[in-house]
């Protein structure tokens, strides 16, 4: 009872942040347990790995990584589940944080559930865009690679710079598309609009008026969180692991949840400005 009262007193912003954090933890927990069980039976019981120094050298890294695929099934499902729950969460977060929404601010997921189907439709369009962008970029860089060979571009430019540019351009385009679909979802939840085709015009109008806060800041937030996570995972692996890194990673997920909450609040403020 006391716990329920305590929970009731949690502000909506904190509630939204914690809800997103818990999605990550609980959706991927079965995968984590399954993966650890798999690795216990494979890597954990092989004396070959017991003498290996951390961080692992390239040989042992390769041998260990080939063991990972066997235990990744549950994690893939967990990742998929997390993504679906994050859609529900986003709709719920918009409703809970929207001062004009007549919503029960204590129930993030209950508020978000009615929007899942519409969000999945948006995801389908997003998928089409992502695949098209991917193939467009591939076409462009295949032709650049051919030109690099025919015109004898330096090796570094051919094999390193071109690939870095390819990754960077893909990342930017996907982020731009991602922010657009984020706005689609925010608008959908705010307006409860069922005909999604009317939304893009409103979003582009918003972009025209507030290019910095509607587009650039949102892109920076997405890119910042993803880059931070990639960097953290890389550093974690290079450092050889440990509980401290795991805890740091969990804190980073919490930070990502805070950034998303900020994105939703910022979007709402912009619309109501």
């Amino acid at each position, binding site marked *: 009872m006391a716990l329920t009262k305590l929970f009731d007193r949690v502000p909506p912003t904190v509630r939204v942040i914690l809800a997103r954090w818990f999605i990550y933890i609980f959706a991927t927990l079965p995968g984590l347990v399954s993966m650890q069980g798999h690795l216990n039976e494979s890597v954990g019981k092989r004396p070959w790995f017991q003498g290996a120094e951390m961080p692992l050298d390239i040989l042992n890294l390769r041998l260990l990584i080939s063991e990972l695929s066997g235990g990744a099934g549950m994690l893939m499902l967990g990742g998929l589940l997390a993504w679906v729950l994050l859609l529900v969460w986003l709709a719920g977060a918009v409703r809970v944080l929207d001062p004009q929404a007549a919503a029960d601010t204590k129930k993030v997921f209950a508020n978000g559930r009615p929007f899942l189907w519409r969000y999945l439709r948006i995801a389908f369009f997003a998928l089409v865009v992502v695949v098209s962008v991917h193939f467009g970029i591939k076409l462009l860089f295949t032709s650049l690679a051919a030109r690099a060979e025919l015109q004898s571009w330096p090796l570094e430019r051919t094999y390193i710079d071109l690939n870095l540019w390819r990754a960077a351009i893909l990342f930017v385009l996907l982020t731009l598309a991602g922010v657009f679909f984020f706005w689609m979802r925010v608008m959908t939840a705010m307006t409860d609009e069922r005909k999604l085709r009317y939304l893009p015009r409103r979003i582009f109008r918003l972009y025209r008026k507030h290019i910095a806060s509607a587009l650039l800041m949102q892109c920076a937030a997405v890119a910042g969180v993803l880059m931070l996570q990639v960097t953290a995972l890389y550093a974690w692996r290079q450092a050889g692991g440990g509980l401290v890194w795991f805890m740091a990673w969990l804190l980073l*997920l919490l930070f990502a949840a805070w950034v998303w909450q900020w994105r939703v609040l910022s979007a709402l403020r912009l619309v109501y400005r």
Partner: protein
Amino acid sequence: MNRLGLFLLAACFAASAAPLPESSISYTIEVRLNPETRDLDGKESITWQNTLDRDVDSIPMHLYLNAFSNRGSSWFRETLGERFIESTILKRFEDPWGWTEPSSIRQDGVELEWEAIAPDDGNHLDRSLIEVALHQPVAPGETVTLNIDWKGRLPAAAARTGGYDRFFFIAQWFPKVAGVRPGGDFNRHQFFGPTEFFANFANYDVTIAIPEGWGIASTGKGELLRSDGDVDWHRYQQGSVIDFALAVGADMENVATTHELATGGSVDIHIFQPKGFRHQVPRWTDATARSLDTLSTRLLPYPYETVTVVLPPRAGTRAMGMEYPTLFTGGPGGELWDYRIAKTTRLNEGVIAHEFGHQYFNAIVATNEFEDAFMDEGMTEYWTAEIMSDNWGEESGNGFLLERALNVNSSSIVAKPATAVYPAVWSGPSFLVRGYSIGRQFYDRPATTFQTAARLFGRDVIDRVFSTYVQRWQFKHPRVEDFWGVAEEVAGPDVAAMLREAYLQPGIPDYRVATLDVEEYSPPPGYLRDGDETVLVDIDWDGDATFGLPAEALEEDGRVLIEILDPGHTRELRTMGNIERRYFDTVAKADKVDGEETVFFTSSARINGPDWDHLPVTVELRFADGVVISDAWDGKGVYREYRTVRPSPLESVVIDPNYNIRLDIVPVNNGLSREVSGTAPRDWSRWVTGLYQLFAEGAASWL
């Protein structure tokens, strides 16, 4: 001079390079390269001595560049699916094709006739081999001179020859007489993708015209003859080599350094690479010098006066990693090696060591690459690892990538047993080996065979085998039987038998621990005799927990009793298996714990083996009390079981703890522990979960 001094002097003379042998063939070639069209315009005079024991009325000749003349050639037809990178050539170049055609072949001024032949596959589109009908037959021991006018075109750099733009690697470029197998016939084979070349030793005198001011590197030693308008004429010569290759480029430079060999004498090391990267030359020169010294010391003093390393620019990257006599291509030249990630690796040093190793097995010993590719590639791969390990250590011989050590042998070790079917290494001809198995068959399996032999019989023993083989068979084109003969003579029948078996057995041997079971000892239910009495032990027995325990389990004499179940094996005859009760002295003694009631454990383990005759292993049974039992298993049989009752449970079983059997490329499954240990499972499962959380974050951000 004292006796020691005389001995050292004699040893120096014995170790320094001997003069090159006489060759029965000579080529004099004059050729002009047109870089705009990639065309070659050549005149060639071949003096060929008949070393066969019969009259020769026709001579087969290779026109290797015709492998690149059309999509239906045997090289293209058999290769494209496997070397997919070649398919990009067709997409990227309007006219990538290469070809050679003689316009005239004369013997004593008489025009000869020739025709394309395809003895291997009957392919009418393949013109990589022709048969030239002689005007007059050549008797054994006699010589014939053929004068050839020919034209050709280099392909847009493909499969280690050709070029475009401002760099050309000129290899397999001239009409060449097919090699004669010792005691056999002509090596009449077309050119196929999976394998390389074979030829007899010859003296070469090559004059080439290239654009003025272009850099040049070549087999042998040479000089700039003259500048003729906008063309430079260079002449290069080399005796007793099986081939002749050149590299030319507008933006290339040739930097030479004289290296004093560890065995005496000197060799000029040429580094031919893009201009502007002189600061890298000491690094590549050092790698070449180390390779020279290692193989000169352990095999045979390098017999030639020069060695040239070509590090191609972008336009020649498809010529990377290929060996020719006294000249080979390494990795790419230029800025890549200044890049932070690549700088800390020794991958290019590894390529240089490998291609230099070919100087011995492809160029000096000169085995038949068409039929026995595993000999040259396999031995070279073994010596590559030896060069790298000798000079930089096995663990990080290939340098560091992202601050992680690159093991010299890391490419041959895998995590899971092969699902592919591998024929015996000795299977042939090599050009029939396809796709997935080329690397394993030609490189890894022979190389790991020698690594295993070196660990089982001693590195010195295998060094003696190789040095005798190279010294005895230099310039003679040996077959694998000749190598086995040397092994038997120098190292004894056991070494020869082990090497032979590794080449004759299909599949890749894999030792593995299949099961490890431990349970607390309790008397077996039923009627047991206790002195003069019979006692009924029921399944809820709560009496003496050690009742019925074998007396040996108490280990009062300090020895451990192990039951070994051997199922036997069959060859021509059947060798019966048995259950052997063997007493072992322990390698490590038990950690005694006083004051605790002794609990006994029944432990058993089953290991699987390849059932080879010459691949013995050590099996270690490690118990929780620190006792280690070491059993020598001859490896005959597909499995073996160990059972014991001891006051301590079996903690782990490890086959081949020092990883001597390098032929077993899946060492991970050589051991099994009862309990999980180490932090890797927990740490990695968390990290991979983080990775999937990142994927979910990415999906939520973009979709």
